[in-house]
């Protein structure tokens, strides 16, 4: 049920982010979504990539520091209150969210929320028990393909 997320150490200097993107592009690897956390000194780039294994390999070959983390992707209605409902469930179960980000695919009216939990398995249990749709990798990337069709 968990999704593999790639995290990369990003130096705060011109060209570092584009070097990562160029590496992936040269291997025909598409980024489904990404999120960037930054400070004055450095940043952390987090990416959801279907071919995460290949992406990690080509990035490490280029000398980037890559970390693999399991995240949880849930699907909600892309409308007011969609995200609030999920957050409410998480809050009630006293589960700590390390960080999160959201994205939508081009078609349809669903949004994807990506969560980083310290204990993803417990979080998945809570979410599914409360009727939230937690996507496995096949479901997630199927939605990406659907929008392209």
């Amino acid at each position: 049920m968990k999704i593999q997320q790639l995290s990369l150490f990003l130096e705060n200097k011109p060209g570092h982010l584009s070097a990562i993107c160029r590496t992936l592009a040269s291997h025909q690897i598409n980024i489904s979504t990404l999120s960037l956390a930054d400070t004055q000194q450095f940043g952390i780039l987090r990416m959801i990539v279907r071919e995460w294994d290949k992406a990690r390999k080509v990035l490490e070959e280029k000398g980037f520091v890559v970390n693999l983390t399991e995240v949880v992707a849930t699907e909600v209605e892309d409308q007011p209150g969609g995200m609030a409902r999920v957050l409410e469930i998480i809050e009630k179960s006293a589960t700590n969210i390390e960080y999160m980000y959201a994205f939508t695919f081009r078609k349809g009216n669903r949004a994807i929320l990506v969560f980083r939990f310290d204990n993803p398995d417990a979080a998945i249990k809570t979410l599914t028990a409360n009727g939230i749709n937690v996507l496995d990798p096949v479901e997630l990337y199927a939605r990406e393909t659907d929008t392209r069709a």
Partner: protein
Amino acid sequence: MTASAPQPVADNRIWDPIERLSAGERSDLQADRLRRLVERIADRVPFYKSFKLRSDSLRTPDDVRRLPFTTKADLRMQYPLGFLAIPRESVLRYHGSSGTTGKPTFVAYSKRDLEMWADLCARFLVAGGLQPRHTVQIAFGYGLFTGGFGLHYGVERVGAAIIPAASGNTERQILLLQDLQAEVLVSTPSYALHLAEVLEQNGIAPGSLALKFGHFGGEPWTEDMRRRIEASLGILAFNNYGLSEVIGPGVSGECVYRTGMHIQDDHFIVECINPETLEPVPDGTPGELVFTTLTKEAFPLIRYRTRDIAVLDRSPCPCGRTTTRMSRVTGRTDDMLIIRGVNVFPSQIEEALLRVEGTAPHYLIEVDRPGTLDEVTVHVEVRPGDFSDKMREMQLLRERIGHAIHSITGIHMRIDLVAPQTLERFAGKAKRVQDNRRT
């Protein structure tokens, strides 16, 4: 012996019985050689002539303190060969310092100097496990730098086989290690680490090579680097020390008990001084090493100030050698940074980085003075094992490094995490300090 007595990591062998002289025999030998040194150079070397040196007041090795110091600046003043003590036609070889801190300085060797030098290298190589049946890959530069040729003739003296790979071209080094199966690697410690990194990147298991141990020198390194070299290459790593002005490699080296580096004090008198007062410091206290070359013919030096900071130890070593031992070089007097009036050595930053679990010793200290106050930034390369996707943990890593540096140096420094392999390395040597205040 107590339970904590040092244990040998390999068979204990001694190349020359002279390494086991009694204290009295050594003292007599040093005093005699010191008098003959002064007689030899007092009128021949212009720099020493000006001091009107006399040998008759030199009764014990400690009387060396009556003699003047020689500094790198003195050598530069006499550039290129003002210190030569034999006729040019008797010189067999020239070497030079790397010149990283200015113009190179040249040194010269007579036939006997070269013989003696090979012998001194043989001593520390044998002390650190080398046997005639071994094959040695020398990944030091062959050139003006004393490392390549010094170790080369030392290995040859022991009777082991040599692969003179020279420095650089890591892919070829690996090919040679794979196909010629050397058991011993000679290089700088940082090059050994680089080699381990490249092996890992190429998916080559160190176990597929024949390497058993390594002799590393040419730059200061740490116990943490030793552990990493030994773990990543699956070898025993031995430290050796030397500098071209004194002779090159062979001044001192570790034995299999690894209790410090045995100084070849039948050929060199060592002193350890406070670099500011120039007074001797007690054994066990860090100070600047000073060497007097007792037997060198072509380029003898009296009380040469090395600018290397280390600690001396005259306690007995289980290996049976009776020589004085020196610690690793923990700093350089000219690396010493004065930050807001406080003396700071790069080795202190290294110590702080080691305290913080999981940080690699690749770092660069950058000093600026934007207004009136010095500001220091320590750039630290992030290793894959230290990297987290959580911002909180990365901030914590920075804070822990900052705290460790502050607790050791008393100075708040800005910590800048940078990507691996982005800090400059010069010919295998890491650059530790960038002081922008003087430029």
